[in-house]
């Protein structure tokens, strides 16, 4: 996925003041800055709420992965409202249910378990991005 226009858009929720919301944003940073920096673009949900032109254009033109901290699913809902193409709706709570030992706590700064949970979420998203890449190119994924 070399075209910047077709980079997968990552949209985390804005659950400010909630540990699961913080996990969603930490996971988004992990994906966009560390795991798949060349294949993703991060879009802040608040920019979509405000209708910021560049953020809306990205969501309108590229596949999106949303990450939500709670079942209100604000990120997914807003991308759907824009008729964006969501390839995966990630719910942090669902990932936590598979990793009961990783209970996130803390808000401004997550505890170690929360940081680990964010890394788990990020790895799952990276795998999804590879699948999207593979489907678009018809080739194998470059990442281990």
């Amino acid at each position, binding site marked *: 996925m070399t075209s910047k226009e077709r980079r997968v858009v990552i949209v985390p929720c804005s659950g400010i003041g*909630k*540990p*699961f919301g913080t996990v969603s944003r930490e996971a988004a940073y992990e994906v966009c800055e560390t795991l798949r920096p060349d294949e993703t673009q991060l879009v802040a949900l608040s920019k979509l709420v405000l209708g910021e032109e560049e953020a809306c254009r990205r969501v309108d033109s590229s596949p999106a992965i949303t990450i939500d*901290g*709670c*079942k209100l699913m604000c990120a997914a809902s807003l991308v759907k409202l824009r008729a964006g193409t969501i390839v995966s709706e990630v719910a942090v*709570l669902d990932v*936590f*249910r598979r990793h*009961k030992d990783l*209970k996130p706590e803390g808000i401004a700064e997550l505890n170690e378990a929360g940081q680990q949970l964010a890394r788990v979420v990020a790895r799952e998203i990276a795998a999804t991005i590879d699948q999207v890449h593979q489907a678009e190119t018809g080739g194998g994924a470059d990442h281990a």
Partner: protein
Amino acid sequence: MSEYLEATLDKFTFRVATDRVYTADGVWLEPQGGSRIRVGVTDYLQQHSGDVAFVSAKPRGTRLVLEEEFAALETIKVNLSLPSPVTGTLVEVNDALGTAPELVNQDPYREGWLVIIEAANWDVERTRLLDPDAYFAVMRSQVEAEIRQP
């Protein structure tokens, strides 16, 4: 099919089913015939506690003492210990909650039930419980007190 009392306070709407009785803590009890009582949590308690991640109930056959824990909910906000509303024996657990704990949030009065208890002193202990109107008033005051908090 249950009917509901409904209160909209601030931006939230809370429902209270009219076909069962309640504790002030937000546990409902629905008689199933004889002394078998289906037990769950109220719409207010589930909304107040947040999305449920895990439900753990005491095993079938557990002898329950009044006010001692019969189940616990782990949500995204709190770990909630639920005190038994009656004395008796836990005879059924809602196994569906093992794979779908979100049922507690989605349908607290029906699919999200927690356990069934064979009550030992139902005729006596039921007198301590609240009818729907009384619980509705308690719930309203709890919500209003929460809204008033800075």
